[in-house]
């Protein structure tokens, strides 16, 4: 029996259950005025804390052992929620019911029986209203509604429910969802000073953007179990069913106190890349061109991540293919079928091998090749990999990459085994040339924004050779992508060169030195070049057409006026020496020749023998684009001819 009194108060001290804590519990009842106040100095649910929580009842009555209340308000230090609630409680039998009408039309009903069983029904709870008094939810701006029903019996909780037209958004909008339709069921029971739980979740409709992934319900379903402690949520295992996946299991640990993901791992089997690739891979490898990337084949994968760092990853590819369509900044590429195993280890080691059936890079076809891979303590090392290209091969050896201070760094060596320049020029759609291309780069290095090639690229062509050294690729993936090199050409047969490019006919040989060559998108933007007759005795003749072409390049008037009349009389002329220099800077070519003539003009070809004529440049500063377009016009006048 409860004693009759004008007022009474109870101080209940502390109440604690896993994931639930109440401290400073007080109950005060003013019988005369019918006011009931329940107060908790501190309330904690699943890591979320509230201070000075007050439940005030403006119309309370106590009749016998029946405590009744209506018109209540819930408030706490962090905010206030107006609730119209009523309850009836039999203090002797410890049974009763409570009904709360929420301000948006939703309501909660709960009934407690004397055996300690609690049943509840939550109908149409507005998630945006809940966020007013649940600060952790408020940061995610939830929308939509939730309905649920459940029972708490013998220390265990069972509930099921649904979310309708639900959504959320982080402050930046980079984690957000809309129009979500979800159903769930949940069971929880005390375990290890927390709650052990199992849950089933079905996602039937809606879409989410979890940067950088845009995901649509296809639909998905998940069975999960885990553990909830005072400040820690463990997802021991979640098995997901979704289109394009035979099996996907995820586990994770989330710190409720720190609001951060501590550990995450997943294992995937039988993943269809055509389904998974556009959603999960393209945003990572080609965010700006995700629609242009295509995938095929199957993938199995495992991944372990902790405290912001990837600890281990394993990928098994089966008849996989990857490609990018032409148009997105080039001719595109394609590789496949790809089979094999690719591992990564931050600590420890693992090895695998990938085999690629064939490939295409831009216009070049690549043959079948295998790539041995070894992962050890944060470094990925590629063993000798010979990629067949035309009749030669590009051979990478001991290429290793590692992540250091948030950046990928690498080194290794690459050799181009001799390949036919004829086949190469044919494949690239260039004027056909004969010769052999080879390269040896023992010092291949790459770091953000730069690839260095310490070695030499040698092309034997036109009976001579071209050698490029000091090769450097800057900003390889950016708008300012460019190649730098120093190039020397020796003993280039002008007869073959001019025939190939339909530039009249010139007999003789030239050497050239090009320093500081810089190519941006394969177009020269800077160099200091000088081309000159090779030393030695050999026939030196220049055809009428070549002289005219040279004149055209110079914008006319490039032949000494006094000799102009000779042009129509002879098919070719003798020359003693030739030289042409160009320093390209800021779009302007500053030209020079064998010698300067004082008036700004310069001697390009010095005549010799009979008949002979000089070719003179009158304009020492030429716009480079104009010069190139003139050269293209000159070349376009004749069809390309294959040299022998």
């Amino acid at each position, binding site marked *: 029996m409860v004693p009759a009194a004008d007022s009474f108060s109870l101080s209940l001290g502390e109440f604690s259950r896993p994931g639930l804590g109440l401290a400073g519990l007080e109950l005060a009842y003013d019988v005369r005025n019918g006011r009931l106040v329940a107060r908790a100095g501190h309330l904690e649910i699943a890591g979320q804390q509230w201070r000075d929580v007050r439940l005030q009842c403006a119309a309370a009555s106590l009749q016998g052992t029946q405590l009744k209340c209506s018109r209540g308000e819930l408030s706490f230090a962090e905010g206030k929620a107006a609730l119209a609630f009523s309850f009836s409680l039999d203090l002797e039998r410890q049974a009763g019911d409570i009904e709360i009408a929420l301000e948006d039309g939703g309501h909660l009903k709960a009934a407690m029986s004397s055996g300690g069983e609690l049943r509840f029904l939550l109908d149409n709870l507005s998630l945006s209203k809940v966020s007013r008094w649940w600060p952790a939810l408020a940061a995610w701006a939830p929308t939509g509604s939730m309905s649920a029903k459940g029972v708490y019996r013998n220390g265990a909780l069972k509930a099921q429910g649904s979310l309708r037209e639900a959504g959320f958004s982080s402050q*930046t909008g980079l984690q*957000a969802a809309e129009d979500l339709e979800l159903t769930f069921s949940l069971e929880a029971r005390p375990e290890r000073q927390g709650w052990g739980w199992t849950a089933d979740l079905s996602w039937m409709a809606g879409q*989410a953007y979890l940067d950088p992934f*845009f995901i649509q319900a296809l639909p998905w379903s998940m069975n999960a179990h885990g553990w909830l402690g005072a400040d820690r949520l463990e997802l021991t295992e979640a098995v997901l069913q979704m289109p394009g996946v035979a099996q996907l299991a995820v586990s994770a640990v989330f710190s409720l106190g720190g609001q951060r993901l501590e550990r995450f791992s997943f294992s995937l089997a039988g993943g269809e890349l055509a389904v998974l690739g556009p959603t999960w891979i393209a945003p990572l490898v080609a965010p700006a061109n995700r629609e242009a990337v295509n995938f095929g084949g199957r993938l199995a994968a495992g991944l372990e991540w902790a405290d912001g760092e990837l600890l281990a990853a394993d990928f098994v590819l089966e008849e996989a293919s990857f490609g990018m369509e032409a148009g997105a900044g080039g001719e595109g590429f394609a590789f496949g079928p790809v089979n094999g195993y690719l591992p990564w280890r931050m600590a420890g080691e693992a090895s695998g091998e990938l085999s690629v059936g064939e490939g295409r890079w831009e216009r070049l076809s690549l043959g079948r090749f295998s790539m041995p891979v070894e992962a050890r303590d944060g470094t990925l090392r590629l063993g000798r990999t010979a990629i067949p290209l035309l009749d030669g091969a590009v051979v990478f050896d001991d290429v290793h990459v590692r992540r250091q201070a948030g950046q990928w760094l690498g080194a290794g060596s690459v050799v181009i085994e001799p390949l036919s320049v004829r086949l190469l020029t044919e494949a690239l759609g260039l004027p056909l040339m004969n010769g052999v291309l080879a390269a040896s780069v023992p010092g291949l290095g790459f770091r953000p924004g730069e690839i260095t090639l310490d070695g030499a690229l040698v092309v034997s062509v036109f009976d001579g050779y071209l050698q490029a050294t000091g090769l450097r690729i800057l900003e390889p*993936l950016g708008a300012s992508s460019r190649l730098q090199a120093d190039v020397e050409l020796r003993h280039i047969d002008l007869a073959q060169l001019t025939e190939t490019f339909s530039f009249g006919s010139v007999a003789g040989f030239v050497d050239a030195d090009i320093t500081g060559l810089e190519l941006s998108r394969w177009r020269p933007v800077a160099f200091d070049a000088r081309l000159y007759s090779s030393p030695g005795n050999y026939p030196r003749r220049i055809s009428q057409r070549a002289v005219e072409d040279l004149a055209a390049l110079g914008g006319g008037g490039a032949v000494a006026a006094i000799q102009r009349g000779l042009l129509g009389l002879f098919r070719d002329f003798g020359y003693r020496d030739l030289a042409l220099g160009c320093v390209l800077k800021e779009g302007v070519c500053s030209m020079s020749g064998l010698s300067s003539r004082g008036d700004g003009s310069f001697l390009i070809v010095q005549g010799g023998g009979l008949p002979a004529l000089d070719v003179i440049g009158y304009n020492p500063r030429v716009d480079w684009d104009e010069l190139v377009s003139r050269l293209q016009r000159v070349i376009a006048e004749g069809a390309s001819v294959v040299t022998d």
Partner: protein
Amino acid sequence: MKALKWLSVVLLLGASLVLAQGNLDVSSPAISALKRSMQERHAQLAPLYDSGALGQTTDGGVAVRDASAVPLAQRAQATALVAAENADRSALYREIARANGHPEWEADVRRTFAGRWAERARAGWWIQQDGNWVRK
């Protein structure tokens, strides 16, 4: 100790003079290519600056401030634009430092440009200051 203090002052002054000699408006083909690329992208970025979805960061970049005005299906495109713009801006700072013959100046160039972007931002655009977003 006093000598060390004076030496530090002289070194700092020297460093300031060296930086003061740098040319932020230096031109090179790479810098021109980057500026062209950024100009072409600006037409797509401007509406996102106007809506407040994006803002200028203190480190001379661009960041997503509040993408909620952008339809969910197009947010990936907006973040790809941000990634591309930041890649170009980083490359631009590297190139300007390189063109000045001092690659080690990259961080100083970045800092100076952060101020420039903030100055040139239109009224209503968002700028990051001391970690907070401020509307210009």
